[in-house]
């Protein structure tokens, strides 16, 4: 039997199998993309309530109280970040980071494609809370069809008076622009995103000053991920206490988890944080093919240190548990490698990506990613010696923490973890090649 609390939760989130759908609720309905469809499920009622009845500070404290953590990778408290912006009548900006480019991540794509108005409503409410008059959605250029969907939804929201001048007659204004990027992973880094939005090459900036103090056009700027902002209407509607009833104490709420790689049912699943990782990989995604076993997985996108099956499968899937295991929840994207996958090759694939995407501004990242690719190519070609593995490891150590942004670290952490945890496999590849030469 459900207790009253569970019952309350189940009427406002949707239980589908092992999933708890809050953000993906009604997402199977194609009409949800349109304003009429979204309104039909009660959409924009929270925006109306917030703009007409609530003070910005009330909204802000509800967001802070909810404990919502950023869903883009860093996991920082969303409400706290919004509270860092100075008060008063100054030009402030909101940038929704929709540049999802982390290998393994595809949740924001699903959220924008299926429920664009939920995001727009979240942006409008967050802008109200932080006193922001100008908002942007920076979407990666590859997501052309999703950007078209957003363009149409934004136009509908303007038409209905949820955006633009004098929203719902409350004398509050909000301009929202969908800005398409042009293909660069680095633009997902928040300060590079700002440079790209200002019309420059996407190079990261030195921090501090942090964007909340000095961001877009030099003004205070709130930068949040698509999934984070999509949570906002639900929190403001149902209250922080309700939201904290989902997930764990340190990771409240649900999470749309992208599961891919060697699993039978890859895709996005929305679950309460804290669910067991085994349940996600085997229960929801169907586990690896018949007769195969999970060898390792990235728990939070390609930047997260890989976990071996025996290290990670029985952990709860939460920010704190993944951090405790020496990895991270990141963007919440699980990539599974089964026993057929060669870890040295996977390390090379990972390194090549970061080498290609390094913007070249900081030497440790530009050169470090380049050398790591060259060394790993030697390994898989059978031209390396075991000593080279120590060099690979030391290159990674010399990247971490030495650059303006964490792109280099994002290669160094997983590659370093692979060399450390699967050293025998790297050595076997090298030894095999030596045998052939002899």
């Amino acid at each position, binding site marked *: 039997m459900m207790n009253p609390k569970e019952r*309350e939760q189940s*009427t406002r989130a*949707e239980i589908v*199998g092992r999933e708890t759908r809050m953000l993906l609720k009604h997402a199977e309905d194609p009409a949800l993309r349109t304003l009429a469809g979204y309104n039909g499920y*009660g959409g924009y009622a929270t925006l109306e309530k917030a703009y007409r009845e609530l003070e910005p500070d009330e909204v802000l404290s509800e967001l802070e109280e909810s404990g919502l953590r950023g869903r883009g990778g860093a996991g920082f408290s969303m409400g706290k970040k919004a509270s860092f912006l100075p008060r008063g009548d100054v030009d402030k900006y909101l940038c929704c980071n929709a540049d999802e480019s982390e*290998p393994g991540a595809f949740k924001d794509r699903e959220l924008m494609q299926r429920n664009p108005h939920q995001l727009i409503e979240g942006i409008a409410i967050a802008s109200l809370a932080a006193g922001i008059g100008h908002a942007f959605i920076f979407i*990666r250029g*590859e997501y052309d069809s999703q950007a078209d969907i957003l363009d149409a939804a934004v136009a509908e929201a303007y038409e209905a008076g949820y955006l633009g001048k004098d929203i719902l007659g409350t004398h509050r204004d909000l301009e929202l622009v969908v800005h398409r990027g042009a293909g660069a992973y680095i633009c997902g880094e928040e300060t590079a995103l700002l440079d790209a939005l200002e019309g420059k090459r996407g190079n990261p900036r030195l921090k501090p000053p942090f964007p909340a103090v000095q961001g877009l056009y030099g003004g205070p700027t709130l930068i949040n991920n698509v999934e984070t902002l999509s949570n906002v209407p639900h929190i403001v509607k149902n209250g922080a206490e309700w939201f904290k009833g989902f997930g764990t104490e340190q990771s409240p709420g649900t999470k749309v988890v992208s599961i891919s790689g060697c699993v039978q049912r890859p895709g996005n699943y929305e679950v309460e944080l804290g669910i067991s990782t085994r349940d996600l990989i085997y229960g929801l995604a169907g586990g690896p093919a018949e007769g195969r076993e999970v060898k390792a997985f990235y728990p939070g996108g390609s930047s997260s240190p890989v976990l071996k099956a025996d290290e990670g499968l029985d952990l709860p899937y939460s920010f704190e548990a993944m951090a405790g295991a020496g990895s991270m929840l990141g963007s919440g994207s699980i990539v599974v490698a089964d026993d057929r*996958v060669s870890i040295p090759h996977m390390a090379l694939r990972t390194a090549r990506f970061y080498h290609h995407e390094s913007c070249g501004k900081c030497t440790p990242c530009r050169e470090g990613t380049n050398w790591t690719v060259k060394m790993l190519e030697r390994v898989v070609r059978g031209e390396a010696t075991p000593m080279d593995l120590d060099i690979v490891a030391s290159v990674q150590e010399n990247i971490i923490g030495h650059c303006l942004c964490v792109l280099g670290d994002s290669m160094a952490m997983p590659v370093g973890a692979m060399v450390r945890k699967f050293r025998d496999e790297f050595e076997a590849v090298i030894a095999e090649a030596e045998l052939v030469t002899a």
Partner: protein
Amino acid sequence: MAELPVDQALTEGRVPGRSQEEIPELHEVGCPPELRERIEALMGRYPDRKSASIPALWAVQRLYGWCTPEGIRQAAAVMRVTPAYLESVASFYDLLHTEPVGTHKVAVCTNISCWMRGGDELLDAFREAAGDDEEFFVTGFECLGACDIAPMASIDERYFGPLEAAEARTAIDQLRDGAEVLPEKALEKRPLPGGNPPAADAEASEGDLR
């Protein structure tokens, strides 16, 4: 010992170039009116007009197929920036082409999840099917954000997957014939992997269904 010439920059410092690049005038560049209007509208969307540089380059690429030097000069004249500035932006981003490319663009993901499921083989199949036909621009690409349909490809900016290597030829033939490409493999048609909820029952209407 013969005296070697010494670079003037070492002894006297570098003399600033006199031919600083100028912003082209509109009447010099022959900008088509529709491109000019489009870029002006784009500039109006931002507090700072330079924010329109990526959207303006997209507009140039839509019109000419790639970011041609003439197109960049036209955009620069409308935006009142130097062509070199826009070129520096265009050359940074993977989706903006500063060299001619084919009309049909096929980007095959070769990143981790697609690689595990045959992305490399799919890329080979597309390359072979397109052959040396210059109508097609086939490239391997970093993660396109669709690992759920791995291995996948973005064909003329729309996503398709999961694809068998043999479907590469079908897709190329369909593009040649102007037919709809792999309709059953379009991302838009894919349901949620966890399935749909059971039909809303009477009880559900008690609570607020938001």
